[in-house]
């Protein structure tokens, strides 16, 4: 296998086939800048991937004080040495010439450079003024899924106990809040049940709205390697697009967008009808089976076929595979989380595993996935609309316990209702009751729905906006104060991937100019605001990443996400470790719920649950009577039609999504030459039949419009579900003459010009995948094709319609065999 591979043209690299139940062989991927030989590297510094949720461990190559490349860590349990294209090339953005190097403040309507003292004092003065005049409810924080654990925890403490505001949320609201909510609904508490190692053991892997090949390419390599080994798994794929996963699946279901609950209910109906229920497991570990069965009574495959526009026979075929599986692994992502009835659908996947007893054993598990690299930490640290350590805001004892950890009066910590979610914060800002919004590490002016509305909110004079970022993003251009932040490779901290694996990411080089780690910025603010605990000591008593981590350990002690057995030192040198990690599990915990459901008891659960249709909270007394012994809850859900159906002026369904080569709003990947060249501009996908009806061809300039707005994009004709359009959401305006919004010279480019403001009432996750749209030919192509990748779900309907996506010499990556896992270095099978 040793060799050099163009990892833009072949994103998943070479195969290392392995048999079911065997360890996944290591393959070390290395990419070094042109002209740098491995032996000339000064230092290798440990880190993990910051451009997706997989947690691929890597070492950063440093030469003469600069980052010159990366190499996968063979010893790590997650990636066994492999890296994805974004990991391999994304680091180059750190050295982009347009990094922010000094703070900016708005003077006479323009952003001008200033020093840290001036910028921070402006923020402090406004904070004090608002606290005095309007109270803590006037201040909100909107953070990210890309900072480090130590930073989120510090932010959570200063916001919830320092300011005392209820308004702290992360952009994880857009990517992973449904995962958290679905776990809370079924298991009483957040916490990923499964493990990536389950891929080694499963005989069936079902991917629900999860384009694994593009969102976590390294785990897709793992599945590809199993598909080429002995006793390969069968794949079931639910996705309206012809993803790589769909092309390798035994059964591919491409339902009408917005009908996931109907489809899942029919799958459950069939599993029950064919007698595949593990009644022993259901009786021992669950409540609610009778209600579930009653709810499913009319959800036949024929009924669902009509709703979902999928043949009933295909649904039965899929149900047969799911029902007959010996070890079933299911994964769920945005096709469910960002679609209509998000939580209700994600919960049905949990139900599938509960009624089949497929939990807590090698190969039998659920992965309710995350999108972002550190989303798990936003959730567990309490920066994603939850209290830290998965504490229950409705449980006074949990709040008292948190107040004890922080040494504050419980009344200091707002808990009169659920912490405010991001979309509601923007509504409060729109109405004027929220007057200061501190945005760290995210770009809502491109990533939130209905951008004309978001820009109008951020541009209000009365709203004081702080943007903390690496670049002058579309959002930063609308801010009153811009703080230059250090990023991955320039600061130290920990973060946790989608299967609970905690990694350390060490500082390799100095940040540019005066840019500072986010942790230092938050600590500086806490010091200037002089936040105190109830005995007059500083509320935030730590001063660097390691002391912040130690403070977090005290907060996590005894909670499901227990970090007390971890330290920066323990995480340095070896593999990442899965929480909970404590005295009882000093080397971490591969799977949750192997010995029953542990965090659903009324006294310990993070949430009493919500109504899956209305989002109404269940009260403690109700939960106690429903689930006195703390079992898993089988929650049934009725299908409701989507809120915006195609028809009339807007005959298409529109879904937005991502591509392998980019992350979020391209702030980093758009500045990495190989990644940018692989997908440099927005496109729209339509089926061959729909294109023909519009007399449109590959590369034609099209207009996509909805009642909210419009964008222009070149057409890519693919095997997408007829009637459905797809637009990637990554593209904004920073690399156009317009800067932050469409104008007379730059037409709409961001997918979110068109998306609807609607969110799942349960998880509050915005729905980016359920809108009605029109498509119109604007200008015939002069022969140029769209710039959509040909290697992925956007592959052309006819090979040859567009030139193949290649990286050439600049994208050659070395792949080397490594003995790390060859001798069965694990004992979990």
């Amino acid at each position, binding site marked *: 296998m040793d060799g050099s591979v163009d990892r833009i043209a072949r994103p998943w690299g070479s195969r290392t086939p392995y048999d079911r139940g065997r360890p996944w062989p290591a393959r070390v991927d290395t990419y070094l800048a042109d002209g740098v030989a491995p032996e000339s590297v000064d230092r290798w510094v440990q880190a993990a991937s910051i451009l997706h949720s997989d947690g691929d461990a890597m070492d950063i190559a440093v030469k003469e004080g600069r980052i010159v490349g990366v190499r996968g860590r063979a010893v790590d349990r997650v990636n066994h040495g492999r890296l994805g294209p974004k990991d391999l090339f994304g680091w180059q953005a750190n050295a982009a010439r347009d990094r922010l190097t000094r703070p900016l403040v708005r003077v006479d309507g323009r952003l001008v450079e200033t020093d840290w003292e001036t910028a921070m004092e402006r923020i402090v003065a406004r904070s004090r003024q608002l606290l005095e005049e*309007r*109270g803590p*409810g*006037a201040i909100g924080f909107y953070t990210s899924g890309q900072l480090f654990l130590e930073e989120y925890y510090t932010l959570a403490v200063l916001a919830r106990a320092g300011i005392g505001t*209820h308004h702290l949320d992360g952009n994880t609201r857009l990517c992973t809040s449904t995962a958290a909510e679905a776990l809370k609904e079924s298991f009483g508490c957040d916490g990923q049940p499964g493990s990536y190692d389950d891929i080694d053991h499963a005989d069936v892997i079902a991917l629900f709205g999860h384009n694994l090949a593009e969102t976590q390419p390294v785990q897709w390599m793992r599945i590809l390697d199993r598909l080429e080994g002995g006793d390969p798994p069968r794949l079931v794929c639910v996705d309206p697009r012809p993803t790589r996963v769909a092309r390798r699946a035994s059964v591919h279901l491409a339902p009408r967008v917005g009908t996931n609950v109907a489809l899942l209910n029919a799958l459950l109906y069939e599993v029950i009808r064919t007698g595949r229920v593990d009644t022993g497991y259901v009786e021992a570990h669950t409540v609610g089976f009778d209600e579930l069965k009653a709810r499913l009574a009319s959800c036949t495959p024929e009924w669902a076929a009509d709703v979902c526009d999928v043949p009933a026979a295909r649904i039965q075929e899929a149900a047969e595979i799911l029902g007959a599986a010996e070890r079933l692994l299911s994964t769920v992502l945005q096709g469910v989380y960002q679609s209509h009835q998000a939580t209700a659908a994600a919960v049905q996947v949990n139900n599938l595993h509960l009624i089949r007893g497929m939990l807590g054993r090698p190969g039998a598990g659920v992965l309710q996935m995350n999108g972002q690299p550190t989303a798990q930490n936003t959730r567990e640290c309490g920066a994603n609309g939850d209290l830290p350590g998965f504490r229950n805001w409705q449980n006074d004892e949990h709040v008292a316990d948190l107040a004890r950890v922080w040494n504050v009066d419980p009344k200091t910590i707002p808990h*009169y*209702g*659920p912490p*405010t979610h991001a*979309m*509601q914060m923007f*509504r*409060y800002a*729109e*109405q*004027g*009751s*929220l007057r200061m919004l501190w945005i760290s590490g995210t770009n809502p002016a491109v990533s939130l729905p209905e951008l004309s509305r978001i820009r109008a909110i951020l541009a*209000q004079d009365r709203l004081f906006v702080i943007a903390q970022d690496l670049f002058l993003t579309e959002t930063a251009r609308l801010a009153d104060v811009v703080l230059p932040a250090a990023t991955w490779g320039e600061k130290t901290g920990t973060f946790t991937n989608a299967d609970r694996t905690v990694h350390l990411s060490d500082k390799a080089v100095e940040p540019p100019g005066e840019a500072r780690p986010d942790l230092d910025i938050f600590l500086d603010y806490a010091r200037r605001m002089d936040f105190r605990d109830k005995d007059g000591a500083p509320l935030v008593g730590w001063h660097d990443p390691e002391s912040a981590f130690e403070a977090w350990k005290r907060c996590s002690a005894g909670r499901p996400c227990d970090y007390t057995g971890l330290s920066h030192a323990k995480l340095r040198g070896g593999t990442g470790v899965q929480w909970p990690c404590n005295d009882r599990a000093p080397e971490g915990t591969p799977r949750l719920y192997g010995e029953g459901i542990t965090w659903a008891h009324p006294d310990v659960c993070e949430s009493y649950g919500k*109504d899956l*249709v*209305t*989002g*109404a*909270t269940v009260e403690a007394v109700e939960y106690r009577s429903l689930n006195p012994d703390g079992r898993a809850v089988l929650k049934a859900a009725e299908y*409701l039609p989507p*809120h915006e159906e195609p028809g009339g002026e807007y005959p298409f369904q529109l879904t937005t999504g991502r591509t392998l080569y980019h992350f979020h709003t391209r702030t980093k990947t758009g500045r990495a030459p190989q990644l940018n060249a692989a997908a440099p501009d927005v496109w729209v996908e339509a089926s061959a039949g729909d294109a023909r009806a519009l007399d449109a061809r590959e590369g034609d300039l099209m207009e996509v419009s909805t009642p909210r707005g419009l964008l222009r994009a070149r057409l890519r004709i693919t095997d997408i579900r007829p009637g459905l359009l797809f637009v990637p959401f990554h593209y904004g305006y920073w690399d156009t003459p317009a800067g932050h919004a469409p104008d007379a010279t730059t037409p709409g480019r961001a997918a979110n010009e068109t998306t609807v*403001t*609607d*969110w799942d*009432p349960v998880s*509050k996750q915005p729905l980016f995948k359920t809108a009605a749209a029109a498509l119109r030919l604007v200008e015939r192509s002069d022969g140029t094709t769209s710039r959509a990748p040909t290697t992925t779900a956007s592959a052309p309907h006819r090979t040859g319609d567009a030139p193949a996506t290649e990286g050439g010499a600049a994208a050659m990556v070395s792949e080397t065999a490594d003995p790390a896992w060859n001798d069965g270095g694990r004992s979990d099978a």
Partner: protein
Amino acid sequence: MNGVELVLRAIHHGEQELADDLLAVAGRHSADHEVHHVATDLAAWSREHVERVTGTARHRGLDLAEPHQDDSSPGLLAALKENAAEAPGRRPEPGLLLLRDLRDLHLKAAENSLYWEMLAQLAQATRDDEALELASACHPRTLRQVRWTNTMIKTLCPQTLSSL
């Protein structure tokens, strides 16, 4: 008219009103997106209840399906007030108006819940299986409407009222 018919008539009227009110609130608060969408979904439940009540009443020779829209109906009032939240744009008053509307929906749903309770009790006392089945099928959704309005008020009122 017997007792069951009396209660059926009351529920029919109450659910019809709640359906209209939910739609009116959805229209009025289109800039409060969660309220807008969920209220629209929940109106469908009340409409379904109206149909079921009408069906049960018909079996008893009671015609409840008379045209109910007249000039003074909430539907018209709703149309007049539609998009009140959008027109004043960024003023705080829509927050107060929303609280008032949610309170009214809550009370209306609670009233309906009591009628379902009466129907169920009466049906048990008189061994009226059809009426009992109707109440058992519909009452849970009415309770969910009650809980939804309660949750929304609980969540929204601190910010709205503390920022006046």
